[in-house]
């Protein structure tokens, strides 16, 4: 599905008689560059957009973006597209030292590239205006947009949400309900159980994959040291036997380099996809939370609307002069309740579609990861066999010659 490399752009010069090109939007995140000094240093990336879609400013656009810009985009999409599994971002780095290591930067670049392209190929998300802002606006506009979102108490939308949650809890207590309201749909339960369990299993797998990378590196180191020791031993042995030792040592050192290469390949093309899988599942968990919130709101608003209706009927019977006011309130509340219900139902619908997409995407991603893994291991094993095989002629020569030679 999504490859880390860009698909080749269409030729810009097309004969007028050729059929209109299919719409495409392809983005690449490249050229990490360290900017700034000291504590405030950061990495910037070139984001190159190639498209023939009319919504965009041209066939190609290049902007400079940093990690926090990607975070801004992610958060905006998460807010606006509830129900959709927003593609996950690579983690912030906790360890200061590691932040600027070549490996970390490359892993992050690759992950960001995959992130943005997934958004670009999602039928809903690709239409987002925030995406267009991200891909096209200059850095100052970007920075302004980003700083609007940051504040001590997070975004205003979050604040409202927190307030609503508190309100809900209070009304729960008032109405005598202590348990939070949850869906009882068995399909939903199954899915929830699946997602939560999946995260644990995947995390375990990813850890093992990471350990495998480390062990490859260690084996490379051991082999290199072993090779050096063999060479020294050869130097103090006799003629042809000494040569065999030296050859053994040389091959060991050669294989050590190949092992380090394979370790890197494993990291980028096997461990990272597994980590990505874990992140994706965590993103799904966020959607579950959104759904639960939406459900609660829908339930509570339905409840309060009902109460208001009963109250209104009562007032009507009593021919109170508060009827007008009550009726207006009731109508407002009903609209809100219907909105909440609609929001909830949208989320449910979207989630059902997303789950299918998710499963398919993951099968493809994992398939590719397995392929890279197997290919790398096969190549490594072959290289090892070839290297050692080449020593055999020297060994044969040694057996034939005089033992004291």
């Amino acid at each position, binding site marked *: 599905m999504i490859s880390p490399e860009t698909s080749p752009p269409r030729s810009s010069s097309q004969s007028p008689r050729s059929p209109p090109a299919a719409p495409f939007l392809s983005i690449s995140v490249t050229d990490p560059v360290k900017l700034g000094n000291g504590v405030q240093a950061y990495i910037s990336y070139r984001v190159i957009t190639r498209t023939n879609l009319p919504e965009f400013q041209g066939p190609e656009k290049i902007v400079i973006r940093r990690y926090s810009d990607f975070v801004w985009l992610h958060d905006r999409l998460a807010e606006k597209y509830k129900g959709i599994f927003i593609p996950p971002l690579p983690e912030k780095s906790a360890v200061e030292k590691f932040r600027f290591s070549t490996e970390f930067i490359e892993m992050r670049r690759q992950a960001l590239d995959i992130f943005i392209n997934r958004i670009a190929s999602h039928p809903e998300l690709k239409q987002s205006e925030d995406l267009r802002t991200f891909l096209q606006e200059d850095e100052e506009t970007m920075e302004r947009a980003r700083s609007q979102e940051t504040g001590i108490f997070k975004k205003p939308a979050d604040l409202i949400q927190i307030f609503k949650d508190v309100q809900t809890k209070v009304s729960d207590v008032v109405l005598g309900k202590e348990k939070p309201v949850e869906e009882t749909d068995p399909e939903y339960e199954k899915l929830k159980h699946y997602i939560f369990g999946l995260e644990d299993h995947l995390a375990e797998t990813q850890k093992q994959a990471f350990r495998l990378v480390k062990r490859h590196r260690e084996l490379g180191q051991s082999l290199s040291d072993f090779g050096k020791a063999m060479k020294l031993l050869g130097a103090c042995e006799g003629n042809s036997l000494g040569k065999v030792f030296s050859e*053994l040592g040389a091959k060991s050192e050669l294989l050590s380099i190949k092992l380090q290469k394979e370790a890197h390949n494993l990291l980028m093309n096997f461990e990272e996809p597994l980590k990505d899988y874990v992140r994706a599942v965590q993103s799904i968990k966020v959607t579950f939370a959104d759904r639960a919130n939406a459900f609660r709101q829908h339930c509570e608003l339905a409840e309060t609307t009902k109460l208001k209706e009963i109250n209104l009927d009562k007032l009507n019977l009593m021919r109170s002069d508060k009827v007008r006011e009550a009726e207006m309130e009731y109508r407002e509340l009903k609209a809100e309740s219907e909105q909440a219900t609609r929001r909830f139902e949208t989320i449910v619908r979207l989630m059902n579609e997303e789950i299918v997409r998710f*499963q398919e995407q993951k099968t493809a991603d994992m*398939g590719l990861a397995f392929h890279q893994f197997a290919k790398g291991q096969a190549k490594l094993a072959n290289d090892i066999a070839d290297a050692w095989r080449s*020593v055999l002629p020297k*060994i044969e020569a040694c057996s034939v010659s005089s033992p004291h030679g």
Partner: protein
Amino acid sequence: MGMDAFLGFASIWARKEREIVARSDAAASDCRTAMPSSLPSDVDPLLFPTPRGGDAPSPSSSSFLEPPSYADVVFSPFESSNGASDQGPFLRLDASPRSARAAASDYLRIAVSDPQTEVEAANSLVPGGTTYVTYLITTRVRPGSDDAGPEFSVRRRFRDVVTLADRLAEAYRGFFIPPRPDKNLVDSQIMQKHKFVEHRRLALEKYLRRLAEHPVIGKSDELRVFLQAKGKLPLPTTTDVASRMMNGAVRLPKQLFGEWAAAQVAPQDIVQPAKGGRDLLRIFKELKQALVNDWGGVKPSVVEDKEFLERKEKMQDLERQLTPASQQAEALIRSQQDVSEIMGGLGLTFIKLIKFETEETVYSSQRIRAADTKNVATAAVKASRLYQELNAHTVKHLDTLHEYLGLTIAARSAFSDRTSTLLTVQTLMSDLTTLNTRVEKLEAASSKIFGGDRSRLRKVDELRETIRVTEDAKSCAIREYERIKKNNRNELDRLDREKHDDFLSMLKGFVINQVGYSEKIASVWATIAEETSRYARDNN
């Protein structure tokens, strides 16, 4: 430490793996081959493949490899000419020079097994008693050698092994005696006891086998008695330490006060090095002689020959190179073992994941993914097993490095026997020169007095007696020195001959195994890469 740790891991690992694999349907069909958790230790790894049950090499392997395929060499089915398909404990193959030498030994096979804890006997000072471990030592004797009975079993404790080693060191000076296993480390934790006992058992087995393979020591009485005498080991635990101590304490004053004859060291004792004993005066004298050798103006009349010194230097050089080589070999084996374990762990983790996902599959894409994952998991487990087997062979081959390191250390000891004997010879010769000079002086002084000086002449007689005894000692010492020189030379020649063959055999075995197993592992992964290649195509 590498081999035993490895074997310990191998058995635990294989068991754990079998448990989880057996529980999972997905993997059971592919992973049911019964793999022995440790390889037989007697068999030559070059020709003996591990019996692998029904696991035939994948059909792609023959086209995959160019002739000659070492995978075939390593994995060819076990010929019936070697007898039973699973190794008999008494099998010997001629392929390696080492096994040819082993076959010439009087002892066909020595096995150390069945460690048992026993309580120290009642004369223990500590209330409650201390414990020690005994091992069962089973020996099979080559038919035709003098002792009756094809097989012996005795129980020995480690202290007995130390005794054996000490007696051999005394009786076989100048020989390269394989070094015995180390004594108890200071901080062997109780938790590690089981591992420690296993480690020691293995080390004892190796030690005894090496002794048996030595052309001279293998035929020694000390070894025979150790392996065959039932009950308590009938070897003296020390050479007369008590009496030496007594004698030394008694002798010194006598020597100082000039009562030479009574206090003279007995000729047969001269063949033992001064340092181990309690003859203090002798120690002082030899020390003085050593200083004179180094700093004095006159060179002693008997010195080491150049050829020996060159060979000794080469041996030291070899020791210097073998030390890191031996260590790095251990590290390499540990690293290979680590990779194997994690690979297997990865496979098992995938299998657990599949189980979870297939509890209720909803989507077809899930099923496809589960099938893909299963293939990869199976491959990972297979590869892990192959790595383990490869490692088992590697352990055996690279053991040659440890063995020769031990030999260079043994050589050092053999050379120091020689050096100390030479020093004794030189000291005695200095003694004689001194004594003779004194006799001359006394005689000259005595002749000036008419009729002779009775007291001086009596002194001369005493001195002459001392000279006679010293001459005897000198002859003894020289004989011993020549004997040790001969032993050194024979051992050096033997080592040169065998080292070449053994090293070559080690390198060949190591390389062939690496090639064979790597080819096998490559073909396992190539299959998976092929099966998943459609995902790469889709991407492009």
